């Protein structure tokens, strides 16, 4: 299976998986937990994520041409690996299903008011399935192309938001006495970075040289800065007191702005929705790929396309299970705690075993 990727493709996969649904409510969460100094919490969370990203990249870099299933088996043995794989598969699958549902819910509540949820979910899943059967390299290419489009659109939108916002709304920038509060809220800020663990299922080859560490760290830092740009531009328009009322803070902010100088695109929500749907499509596809690729390691005899179909089909059923938007939100909230296990704890265990067992030197 030729699933090797270039360094650039790998970093865009990180961008694709991280920038997704979470960005919608990010300004609200930041304002709620740390007020106008939330940028600091995001910065600290970025630094912590860079450490996780380093550990995960290191595992893939040391164990060339292997993904977590294979190197975990070498490091911890078969039984533990099965447990780990179970944890990862459940995680990727549930997040994939719930992301499909919550993104469809958001689309229904914002633009397609009369379209049933199942129809939006189904439409998403059709496209995701089509991308999945083309395998990782195509998904990575989509992430590259979409990533660039998303970055250009986001920079344009958020610079426009800054022009409409007021500096006074984002002050005070920092209150020294509130430092413990900011550090406490850092934990909440790590959740938007969940997804970095996708690197565990991307096999590195000889093509992926040492610079990959620099690239992944830089991409995580870039995403941190990107998040700060999103948060600050939204708070500058709406203000910290009001933004906390909106689950869809980013979309609510964009709807607050009307730039006559842009003529026919004076309302930015059209551009935003296109870029956002591209972003969630990348996120959903990568998450689904994570589940499928690990399942294909467990069920080696089953064809990849058949597995993809089964996963997408069950994801559709699971995505329809919650009856309300609140329930989906709750599931995703629990999944984000679960995420700390797969992003932080398991890779840390494997990283330390690699180091202690000196597997890096053996390879």
């Amino acid at each position, binding site marked *: 299976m030729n699933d090797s990727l270039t360094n650039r493709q790998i970093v865009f996969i990180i961008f694709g998986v991280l920038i997704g649904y979470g960005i919608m409510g990010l300004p609200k969460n930041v304002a709620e937990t740390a007020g106008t100094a939330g940028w600091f919490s995001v910065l600290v969370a970025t630094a912590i994520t860079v450490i996780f990203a380093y550990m995960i990249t290191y595992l893939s870099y040391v164990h060339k041409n292997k993904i977590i299933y294979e190197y975990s088996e070498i490091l911890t043995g078969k039984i533990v690996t099965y447990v780990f794989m179970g944890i990862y598969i459940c995680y990727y699958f549930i997040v994939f299903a719930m992301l499909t549902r919550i993104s469809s819910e958001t689309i229904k*509540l*914002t*633009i*397609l*008011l*009369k*379209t*049933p949820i199942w*129809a939006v979910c189904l439409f998403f899943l059709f496209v995701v399935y089509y991308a999945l059967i083309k395998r990782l390299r195509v998904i990575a290419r989509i992430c590259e192309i979409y990533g660039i489009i998303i970055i250009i659109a986001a920079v344009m939108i958020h610079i426009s938001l800054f022009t409409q916002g007021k500096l*006074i*709304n984002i*002050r*005070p920038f920092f*209150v020294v*006495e*509130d430092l413990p509060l900011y550090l406490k809220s850092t934990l909440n800020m790590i959740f938007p970075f969940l997804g970095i663990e996708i690197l565990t299922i991307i096999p590195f080859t000889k093509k992926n040289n040492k610079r990959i560490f620099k690239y992944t760290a830089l991409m995580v830092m870039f995403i941190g800065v990107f998040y700060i740009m999103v948060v600050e531009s939204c708070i500058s*328009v*709406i*203000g910290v*007191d*009001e933004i906390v*009322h909106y689950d869809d803070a980013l979309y*609510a902010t964009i*709807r*607050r*702005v*009307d730039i006559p100088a842009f003529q026919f695109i004076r*309302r930015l929500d059209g551009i935003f929705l296109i870029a956002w749907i591209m972003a969630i499509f990348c996120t959903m596809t990568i998450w689904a790929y994570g589940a499928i690729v690990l399942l294909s390691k467990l069920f080696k005899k089953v064809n990849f396309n058949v597995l993809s179909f089964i996963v997408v089909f069950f994801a559709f059923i699971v995505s329809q299970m919650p009856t309300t938007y609140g329930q989906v939100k709750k599931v995703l909230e629990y999944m984000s705690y679960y995420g700390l296990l797969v992003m932080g704890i398991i890779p840390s265990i494997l990283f330390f075993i690699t180091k202690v067992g000196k597997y890096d030197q053996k390879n």
Partner: protein
Amino acid sequence: MIKKISELLIIAVFSLCLTSCWDYEDVDKKCITISIGVDQVGENVQFSGEIANLTPSPEAKEKAQTGNVYRLLSYGKTFEEARIHYDAINPFPVFLGVTRVVVFGQNFAKKGIEPYLNRIGHIYDYRKTLLTVVSRESPTELFDTKVEKHISVGFLIEDIINSLSNTGKALYPTCGELLSDIALEEVGYLLPYIGKEKGSIAYLGLAVMKDSKLIGVIDIVDTDGILYLLGENPMLVEAIHNPENKGNVYSFRTNVKKRKIKTNYTNGKIAINIDLDLQAILRYQYYSTPISDEEIKRLEKIISEEVKSSIVSAIKKAQNEFQCDYFGFAKYFRADYPKVYRKIKWEEIFKDVDVKVQVKTKIVNENLVDPDAKNKY
């Protein structure tokens, strides 16, 4: 062959399906609302406004001057009841996505407009950049005004306020901005105040809103001080009388180059320092007389004094007459002293806050006129 075109076929089938998805609705099957009026009549909330007439009647076609809108009127004890009545009399569902203006009648504004602003904020259809104004006359009366140069009263109101705000002579508060002010709780806000003057619709000044309730009106001639502080790009005219030659008047156009608001907290006393750098352009004099460099300096000082006095008087009015911080000074104080702000009740303290205003003016050009021209022959 089929394999080659299969992807194209899939795209084509999806495109065809998408054209008739659940949310599709023909434009002429919607009541496209241009303006909404909300007022309190007795115990009832009254909705009035204008709806775009996409299929004009034969009589309307004959009359070239008739606007392509028809009026709406509905009422009920709550917004929801009024909406039920509205739906019961209209052939198509309402579409608020292109609504240009919401006009609050005085009676409703005195009772409080926050519920309706929240309605605009949360109903999907409404643009959050919608203009909100208060009307001296009831909105019904306003919408019945015959307008010659516009197709509707709603468009006319929005265009008046928009053109004034673009030239720095009025404020254009959008619904979104008002919701942010309401969320801060400690500040009030100002809305354009409109009414009928000699048969036509006119901008009359600013309506003062405290706790989202109308508590007073500031006449258009007294709004300069407010615009210098709150306007996006205030560009105002200052007419300066020549003290030596009373008949002569210098007409200047001023604009704000820099506006700095800082707060200070010492020994439990709050002070607000406002620094304003103005640029002035001499538009013309009533009678042309030479102006020396000394005269220019003197004029700069006079303009500064006049602007300062209009700002001070606007703030005093807010502190003493209305006891409401519609300038949003609370935001500046919170940014400078977040810890202190959490402990005080700004609404109560505002009236005793010490405000210091400093205005510096520079006359940057004299409109291509040589003000110190001398006959040399």
